């Protein structure tokens, strides 16, 4: 049996930090466009759609990487509730990163709008035009984005807690700075 690694695989780390930037940017872009009537609204939405599809593609790659590489184990002395919280929050992060772009794609489809990633690149509709379904999906997209932002905050706080307070190597397993 192979010894457990102390670090996440290099590709897993690269994907994590790339997607961390993209997801945080995406959350701010989404919140900004929904709260603006200025020109920002128009260009943020043009950024939001292709970035969302890029995140969807990357999260699929990332799930493949996750299941085909070994994860460093959590410290043995980590309290059970923190182990559970770590597992649950990771499940939540993956689930929301997958669900939000799909909801965005589906809600544009349900509105009967063409799903344009640029002035000429169009994705097929994910669902048929249906206004009540649009209202449901659009609200879900907004509320779940807030849930994702909260989960990201908790994840960040926990990572810093591991790095600064517990100093147990968990943060370093993702930064790659552990020797």
């Amino acid at each position, binding site marked *: *049996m192979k010894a*457990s690694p*102390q670090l996440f695989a290099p590709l897993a780390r690269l994907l994590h930090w790339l997607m961390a930037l993209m997801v*945080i940017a995406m*959350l*701010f872009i989404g*919140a*900004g*466009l*929904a*709260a*603006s*009537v*200025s*020109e*920002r*609204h*128009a260009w943020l*939405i043009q950024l939001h759609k292709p970035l969302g599809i890029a995140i969807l593609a990357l999260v699929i790659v990332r799930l493949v990487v996750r299941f085909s590489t070994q994860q*460093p*184990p*959590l*410290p*043995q*002395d980590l309290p059970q509730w923190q182990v559970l919280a770590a597992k649950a929050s990771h499940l939540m992060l993956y689930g929301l990163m997958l669900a939000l772009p799909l909801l965005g794609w589906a809600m544009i489809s349900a*509105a*009967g*709008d*063409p799903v*344009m990633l640029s*002035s*000429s690149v*169009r994705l*097929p509709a994910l669902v048929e*035009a*249906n*206004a*009540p379904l*649009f*209202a*449901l999906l*659009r*609200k879900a997209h907004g509320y779940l984005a807030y849930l994702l*932002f909260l989960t990201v*905050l908790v994840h*960040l*706080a926990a990572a*810093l*807690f591991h790095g*600064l*307070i*517990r*100093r*147990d*190597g968990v943060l370093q397993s993702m930064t790659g700075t552990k020797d």
Partner: protein
Amino acid sequence: MLDHPSPPRPALSTASLVVRLAAIGVVVAGLAAAFAYVNGTLDPQRLRPKTLVNALETNNGVHPGYRRNHAKGVCVAGYFQSSAEARAYSSAEVFSEAKTPLIGRFALPSGNPYAPDSSVPIRSFAVQFSQANGQQWRTGMNSMPVFPVGTPEAFYQLLKAGAPDPATGKPNPANMPAFFAAHPEAAPFLAWVKTAKPSASYATETYNGINAFYLVNGEGKRQAVRWAVVPQSQDAVGDTAVDGSDFLEKDLVQRLAAGPLRWQLNMTLANPGDVLDDASKPWSGPHTVLNAGTLVVQSSQPQADGDCRDINFDPLILPSGIQASNDPLLAARSAAYASSYLRRAGEVSPLHHAPQESKP
């Protein structure tokens, strides 16, 4: 198989622990605060889509299922027949294909779905062109040639000037004159309103796109334009309001029973120096006008179940070959329409319980 041992960690002093916990708190709270600023929570003065839609609801009342503006209307369907004239200027398929199906909607420019047809001299025509390649062009046009104001902020002030006074239930009569005194940019609109009469028919009106856009050809060359649809071989303008308050839809149904109605799509090419980012400014003097083709309206449907009901006529839904100008009203219309659309999309069933007769 043992997990890796944790590295040795000397205990933190209380002071160090407090500093480190505080640092984590600062990072997390800082990110949360930045987010709260961006989403408007910490920036209450910002004009948001919902601010505009709330103002429309304040002025007109809340009518579930209806558009929050241009609430009273009728769906139509037909097709667009392109001419060759716009092809050199735009690569959009709507101009290269002979025929493109369209769904449209004629409406009154008020958020009150029971407004009498004679209450305003303005009529609107919104159109969705569905290209064979799946791209769409949506445009909302109005019978006035210019918009009263050039910015979303000024439009919001205009809505506030028309808001009912809680004490009387009616707008303060001094507000509107005060607004227009403070907004000289509204002069061209006011000059038009003076001569405008509520028409007896949707069919006799010219509808103007008002905002500037760019036509973009295959080489990427951009030409700024404003577009309008001009009625063809329909009765002369001048018939003014007839009796009753719901004559426009009846008139349309009657005319369509006799045959299709046609409008010519005119593209007015901007001259150097024409203002592209202010819809309150007319383009004066001689201009080249392209006849881009003909809109043929063949049938109508009541809006409660019509094909136009669930369309958000967002002016930024454009095909490749047509681009938005930097007119700030375009982004504001797009953002506010999305907010109105979200509200009414979840309220479809009340449309069927609406009173049949107009309210006074």
